[in-house]
């Protein structure tokens, strides 16, 4: 084994160890972020799902920004079909 190969092996081990320690944290943060995003979607779509929303006028203008996430969201929330009659994403 040459010096160079040795170094790259060490690098690889280091990378693997780093990944080993960091991955669980990264996963929890990614989950937490996803939960926040889901909650946000719920707030934006609240009025359409029958939950009174004091600011429907203002959440509507966020609609264009979250519309394309709608399908993934309702699937993840355990709803096989789109919960809104007039959004026929699936």
């Amino acid at each position, binding site marked *: 084994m040459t010096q160079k190969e040795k170094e790259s092996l060490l690098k690889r081990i280091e990378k693997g160890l780093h990944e080993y320690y960091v991955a669980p944290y*990264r996963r929890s943060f990614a989950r937490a972020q*996803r939960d926040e995003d889901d909650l*946000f979607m719920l707030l934006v779509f609240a009025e359409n799902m029958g939950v*009174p929303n*004091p600011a429907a006028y203002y959440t509507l*203008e966020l609609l264009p*920004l979250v519309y394309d996430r709608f399908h993934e969201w309702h699937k993840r929330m355990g709803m096989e079909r789109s919960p809104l009659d007039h959004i*026929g994403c699936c």
Partner: protein
Amino acid sequence: MLLKLANSKKILFFGGKGGVGKTTVSAATAAACADSGAKVLLVSTDPAHNLGHLFDRTIGGTPTRISAGLDALELDPQETVNVHLKEISSSLHKLMPTNLYSEVDKHIALAKDAPGMHEAAILERMADVVEDGLRDYDKIIFDTAPSGHTARLMVLPEVMSAWTEGLIKRREKADRFAEFVRELGEDTSMQDKTIGNADDSEQERESQIRQILLRRRHKFTHLRERIADSDMTSFVIVLAAERLPVLETIELHEQLKQASISVDCLVVNKRAPTDSGEFLKERQEQEEIHLATLAKTLTSLPRQDIFLRPHDIVGLAAVESMAGQLT
């Protein structure tokens, strides 16, 4: 008393029970201020507009010149809602395949008559008028809708800014998590499951969402600050010296106090004159009883009385002649 107050403030609201003469009194005050050299914008927030009827001419959603120094404007919530929804639906169209346009439009059409839409639209226009209006005018005078509607409108900026604040906090939290994920390096295991991929378009989207929310918050807090600033803004309650208007005035005053809006003057409109026969004299004595009730609860509020006139007040000349009676 009313004039002195009007001259010392930049924004003046006139509110009270339906039918007591809010429109007439606010128009007369506006005319008097314009007469003394100020540039005044008179704004009606009542969806059932009366300014046009009072001045006997068409006044719409854009400032209309009434006389030198006096412009009038009737906020049109339906028009505001339509414009707002049209913008949303056109930006949605950009995102959606053509065959889904009708779905999008159905969704938006349903929102048109959703509860609170008109209220929000009036609030939005009010915020614009307060923000832009003071650039072009020295004074803005609001002729508001009857008590309940207005009391609600006055607390709305606070409710709305709390609501946007909540949303912004949530977004910040989500952004922080996203940042941690980015710092911890690429993760392929969650890529298909998270909706917050850390690529550029995602960040772009996040910043757009935040911009919209921040713009909203700015509008609400700005309006809220102006309304609650008692050096700048004052609320005048108009009433008739009758039992129901008096009771409603006391209630409205309490509601406004809770929203920390300062009420600085009461205008008792259509008072019965004492020198016009037995019938009106008797009426005047009855009025004093009601006004005593009023004085008992709202002890320190200055009062301006305006006497009943034999003829209707219609047109600019009549409004100006009434303005001449204000002190």
